[in-house]
């Protein structure tokens, strides 16, 4: 069901863990849907993401998208990180099954949540960053009609 890339990131997730005193941390998703992602960012004075860690409660796709998302933002500027979309995450993973697309949205949202926290802590505004919705499921469309 999953691509090899997804399985690789699920089996060997990059950047799992916590960062003590992070520059920003965000948690999105909700346990009701079965997916929660937490992203920690360590951002230096130049606005470069020096380190990133995640923890995820969720399915294989949730773990893999979190892992891939951390890879995509690491070393990037805040502005570049903001441009990491769910599509980018999915493409980097060679695709996801249709029912799992929401996991990639969650990963995008987790980055945004951590950046928002960073911005708030530092009293700055990051252009283009909207207040993230913690519960991504509210953004999603209703499930396909049950026959």
């Amino acid at each position, binding site marked *: 069901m999953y691509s090899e890339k997804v399985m690789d990131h699920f089996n060997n997730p990059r950047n799992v863990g916590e960062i003590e005193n992070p520059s920003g941390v965000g948690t999105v998703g909700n*346990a009701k849907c079965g997916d929660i992602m*937490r992203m920690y960012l360590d951002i230096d004075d130049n606005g470069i993401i020096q380190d990133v860690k995640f923890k*995820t*409660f969720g*399915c294989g796709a949730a773990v893999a998208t979190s892992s891939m998302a951390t890879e995509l933002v690491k070393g990037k500027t805040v502005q570049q990180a903001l441009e990491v979309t769910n599509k980018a995450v999915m493409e980097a993973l060679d695709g996801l099954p249709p029912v799992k697309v929401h996991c990639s949205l969650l990963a995008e949202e987790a980055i945004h949540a951590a950046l928002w926290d960073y911005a708030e802590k530092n009293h700055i505004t990051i252009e283009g960053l909207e207040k993230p919705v913690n519960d991504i499921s509210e953004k999603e469309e209703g499930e396909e009609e049950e026959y």
Partner: protein
Amino acid sequence: MSKLIYLDNAATTQVYPEVLQEMLPYFSEVYSNPSAIYSFASESKKAVDKARTSVAELINAKTDEIYFTGGGSESDNWALKATADAYASKGKHIITSTIEHHAILHTCAYLEKKGFEITYVNVDENGKVKLDELEAAIRPDTILISIMTANNEIGTIQPVREIGRIAHEHGVLFHTDAVQAFGHIPIDVDEMNIDMLSASGHKINGPKGIGVMYIRKGVKILSFIHGGAQERKRRAGTLNVPGIVGIGKAAEIAKNTMAERSAKEISLRDHLIDRILTEIPYVRLNGDRHDRLPNNVNVCFRYIEGESMLILLDQAGVCASSGSACTSGSLDPSHVLLAIGLPHEIAHGSLRLTLSEKNTVEEIDFVVDELKKIIERLRSMSPLYEDFVKKQNK
């Protein structure tokens, strides 16, 4: 251990080699349509008759109360829709439970759209239907009570005899979805006041795509699949002779081995439950500890999610499930686990291990050892577990 450890027998089972053996001649040799008039047809007709007898004997029914269908889902649909059709003039109220299989629940939803009213009786924290609620739900226009014999996810066995008694005291028909119970625990349609019963071949080491519907003589429901005059004009379609022979043989074996088999399964099951409950923290057993299918283990591990567990178990060669196999397409956690009162978060961490008598203690021990590693690993990357630990340490 590179051998597959199959612990998903509630989803489907291996066709026993002796069952397949019995089926084989009816594909390419005795392939006749049993309805035909020539002697070549009487060979397959005889095989069908024999199978019907074996199935009847397993549930103490009469041979001509057994109808063959295309599976458990068809039987469930038949029971509900045809009862609704036949008894609509008496009433349009049906009682079922919140933990039925989707073959019942989605059929009920369909009937609701057709103007029927369905009462979904609640269950207690072990998944047992609340009998007082059930009895209180009966109205003058109630035409049917449909409660499963045993639950496919948490294994809880319902007080079927009591439910049948209540139904009959109120002059209401009683159907039971016995797909998980048939061949696994003793069923007696007379003693248990069962009017209709659904069963499926592939849950008892018989073939897929063949089911059974028991209809007590006198129950006036007609066809669900209309057409030819097969099955005493109640179920149209050329008889699936090899499938029928298969479910017949499987029923015969199930009857002969039930006592020994379930004793073996219960001892494996209890060993598995005991090890999990004592060696893994933050876990709960779902379903009734005692009134439980011999082969069912269902547990929730807190702070982790089921699919990740399944993938890692798969990599260790273990086939398991989390929620009903039929609904793995859905994102919602199992309606059964919610019905017994679990919050979503915990329901998502459910694991169902359903064994067979062919499993060994070594396999079970291997699975527990693997599980311990898997759960530790998943918890170590779980934000929920992180929060929990931090709260503990405060």
